[in-house]
């Protein structure tokens, strides 16, 4: 089942993934608000040492970012931007928390966010990239075809 939305079509699966990820980001944001210090404990010591602000404040900032991403995804407002932010955020989380028992879950969330981002990427940006490719024929071509 597909829905035409201006110049893009989104599948039912896209909306299931969008709402599922939105709830995840929102709930994690709320849980971080509840106990920011405990969530800060997931940071590797080297990463915590790099923070220019107290750990609790950094975690509150993370919670706010999570909630904003969740709201954007939930109401389907700029889903590509929310998914992009979510993916970048998850890459940072994977980097600073190290390999643990729950790393695989973050990888699953990251791939979900990337899938949403790819599916909802604005046509205007795709057109611009294609336009730039036409201007510079060497980009994106294999040496044989140059």
């Amino acid at each position, binding site marked *: *089942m597909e*829905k035409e939305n201006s110049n893009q079509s989104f599948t*039912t699966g896209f*909306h299931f993934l*969008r*709402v599922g990820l*939105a*709830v995840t980001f*929102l*709930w994690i944001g*709320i*849980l971080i*608000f*509840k106990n920011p210090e405990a969530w800060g404990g997931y940071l590797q010591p080297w990463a915590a040492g790099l923070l220019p602000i107290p750990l609790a404040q950094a975690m509150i900032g993370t919670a706010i970012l999570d909630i904003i991403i*969740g709201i954007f995804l*939930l*109401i*389907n407002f700029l889903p590509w931007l929310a998914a992009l932010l979510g993916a970048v955020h998850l890459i940072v989380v994977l980097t600073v928390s190290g390999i643990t028992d729950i790393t695989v879950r973050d990888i699953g969330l990251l791939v979900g966010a990337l899938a949403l981002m790819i599916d909802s990427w604005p046509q205007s940006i795709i057109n611009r990239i294609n336009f730039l490719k036409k201007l510079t024929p060497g980009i994106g071509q294999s040496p044989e075809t140059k």
Partner: protein
Amino acid sequence: MTAYALLFTLAAIGISETVYLIRQRLLAEEPICPIGDSCAMVLASQYSKTFFIPNDVLGLLFYIMASFISAFLVIGIGPIVVWDFIFKLAVAVGALLSLFFTYLQWRIIRAWCFWCLMSAFTIWLMGIIILVSNIV
């Protein structure tokens, strides 16, 4: 905690659904009706507004309130007792209103709207979770 997570999830699903319905209404487009084809008939009926306010807007306000209160209860932002009472009361009123709207679809409009039924089941499920867990 688990019950709050479920209540919050249901409220978030409700927000997503009502935002979709409001957006479609503002764009003057018919919403997709995954099951059946009577959504437009129900949503365009004279019963689609309560006290001149579209039901989708009322639903959105309810779900936003439910998500905020469940978040407040988890984080521990007071007054907890007041939030508890408002949450219970709102879900009870919402469940009764949903029962009434379902009756309207069944007997008066004689057409079923997928989104309206989904919203009704969401609110009833919230009520069941509150009753079963007895957390609020």
